């Protein structure tokens, strides 16, 4: 191929841009879901189903965008946020996402919940070049910018989190005997991989037992019994809230006292610790990146006061110990920054460009020292964690902020 024929499309595109100019028709074609006064954003959320505790995130985002609209919107545009229930069931996610993209004509999808659910629509959205922004799942694969340039994650990946736990385990115990309880899907398996990343060839000797559960299982008692009989002294629980609460309670009830880690998706005091029993969770360790509402350290924190004021004004009946409300507020603010950076160019390409150009963004609900950073080759916005221990009243942070690999 010679240089001339390669250059021709560029010349044509430049010409097209010149002639199209800023006319309304061209704008509408380039910016689906966007009008002069509004932008349509879609989300699928688990308002029902086994993961329904996360429905709080969708409700927070709806309230946040409503309050932003009342204050005039972003760059003069109101946010038309369409958040629909998929019940955490992938086929329903596909159906609802297609409806949002093809019938509602949303500009992009934002913070859709769940690993299996987002996986089910990732190919479709990338094929259609619809941004799949800040998905509410920590699977590592959302950072795969080469294969899926239209998909970007948000929170530290599960794999990063597991790496941090494994590093801590190796630091505190000479010959740990590790047991892993994981959900039998990408979410749970990321923890197994993360621990493997750190332990390497020692994995087979140090991990004495790893058992899975299905998200449809009524109870996980049997798995906990199996793990205990393996003689393990360390337990990593990679489970969604309902199962995590059951696991924490069962471990306590059978008189097992392992060094116990729980996945960051199940740190909500309201949805996990309280149902399990606050005293039964004492000693539990997790990795945090956001401020916990029950931590007295943030009683007078300006960032958390901002969140509290928002909750009081917009969601007065919500349980303020539920970490999902803090999460929803934080990820919502991140999106608002992206929209601000976009200015008046709300084409899908520019939205993706701005989402991958966040520089040291400080979110009031993130821990001090943890900042949002993205680039065209870094699709893992948050890559830092600080360990915290449940002391019966709150998550007590200890140690430094640890940066994961972020792969």
């Amino acid at each position, binding site marked *: 191929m010679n240089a001339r024929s390669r250059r021709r499309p560029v010349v044509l595109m430049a010409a097209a841009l010149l002639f199209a100019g800023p006319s309304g028709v061209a704008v509408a074609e380039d910016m689906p879901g966007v009008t002069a006064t509004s932008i349509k954003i879609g989300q699928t959320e688990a308002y029902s189903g086994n993961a329904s505790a996360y429905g709080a995130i969708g409700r927070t985002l709806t309230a946040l965008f409503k309050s932003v609209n009342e204050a005039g919107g972003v760059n003069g545009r109101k946010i038309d946020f369409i958040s629909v229930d998929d019940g955490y069931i992938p086929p329903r996610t596909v159906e609802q996402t297609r409806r949002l993209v093809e019938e509602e004509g949303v500009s992009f999808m934002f913070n859709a919940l769940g690993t299996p659910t987002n996986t089910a629509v990732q190919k479709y959205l990338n094929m259609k070049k619809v941004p799949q922004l800040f998905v509410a799942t920590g699977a590592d694969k959302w950072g795969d910018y080469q294969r899926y340039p239209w998909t970007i994650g948000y929170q530290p990946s599960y794999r990063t989190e597991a790496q941090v736990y494994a590093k801590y385990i190796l630091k505190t115990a000479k010959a740990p005997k590790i047991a892993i309880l994981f959900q039998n899907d990408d979410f749970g398996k990321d923890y197994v991989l993360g621990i493997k990343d750190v332990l390497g060839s020692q994995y087979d000797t140090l991990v004495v037992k790893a058992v899975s559960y299905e998200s449809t299982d009524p109870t996980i008692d049997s798995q906990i019994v199996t793990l205990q009989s393996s003689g393990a002294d360390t337990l990593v629980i990679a489970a969604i809230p309902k199962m995590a609460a059951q696991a924490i309670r069962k471990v306590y009830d*059978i008189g097992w006292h392992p060094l116990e880690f729980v996945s960051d998706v199940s740190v909500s005091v309201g949805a996990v610790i309280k149902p399990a029993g606050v005293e039964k969770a004492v000693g539990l360790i997790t990795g945090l990146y956001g401020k916990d509402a029950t931590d007295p350290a943030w009683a007078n924190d300006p960032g958390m006061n901002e969140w509290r004021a928002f909750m009081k004004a917009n969601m007065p009946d919500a349980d303020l110990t539920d970490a999902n409300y803090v999460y929803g507020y934080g990820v919502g603010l991140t999106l608002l920054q992206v929209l601000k950076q976009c200015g008046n160019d709300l084409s899908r390409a520019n939205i993706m460009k701005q989402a991958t150009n966040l520089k040291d963004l400080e979110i009031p609900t993130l821990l001090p020292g943890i900042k949002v950073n993205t680039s065209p080759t870094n699709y893992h916005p948050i890559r830092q964690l600080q360990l915290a221990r449940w002391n019966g009243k709150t998550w007590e942070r200890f140690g430094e902020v640890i940066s994961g690999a972020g792969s």
Partner: protein
Amino acid sequence: MIGLLHQILSGLVTGGIYASVALALVMIYQSTHHVNFAQGEMATFSTYIALALIEAGLPYWGAFLATVMISFVMGAVIQIVLMRPMANAPVLSSVGVFIGLLLVFNSITGWIFSYTIKSFPSPFEASRPLLGGFLSPHELGATVVTLAVLVAVYLFFRHTKLGLAMRAAAFNPVSSRLVGIRVGHMLALGWGLAAALGAVAGMMIAPVVFLDPNMMAGILLYAFAGALLGGIDNPAGAVIGGFAVGVIENLGGAYVVGTELKLSLALFTIVAVLVFRPNGLFGRVLVTRV
């Protein structure tokens, strides 16, 4: 060896959950010859009513009794309003209604009470776990309640006129009507009792698995397996079947097929029973004169 014992114990505890739901399934089958797929969701709904009553200030057993009665009325009303017009419809139509009810109850529960996981109080709570923590006072209490309900159901069907009339109404509506049994009343009564049993099961299960609108989704499947294994027309068989499924599931999951195939094991049990002993291990062979 200790591990095996613990697996069996924990299987019995889970089996107790299945048994209590299986019992409600048997109840409705005995009195209507249908299997109600919405049984689980109705029980969940009842459990939320109980929680609402407790939160409103009623003592536990007061709320318990009130819930059982409310559920009874709810079940009877559903039969009268929804099922009675379907009396002469094919079985498939009833199945359609059951599935519809399942979806309706699931959504209504979530809509009214929210989908957030809630803890549910237990009347048997004590600070000290029993048997090294492999049995909690609640689990023991719930098992006793299940067995008590079983005895009550057995006595009711075997030794009361009403129970006999209900069985007759389900078995042969035409002949029953001829001997003066009010078949319609009996069916409504059956639905009411099944809903009441479901409510008891829900209130016993919720402290163990936590209360959310989908609490029963997985449980119902195992309960079906238990009811079929023991014989869907035999209360005692269903209870034994429920316990057996709990233990089989645990031992199979821990030592044989692995945790990935636990649910498949329950489904396999259903299929195997239907193939080799269609009436269950304790069920009677039904002979109908044509």
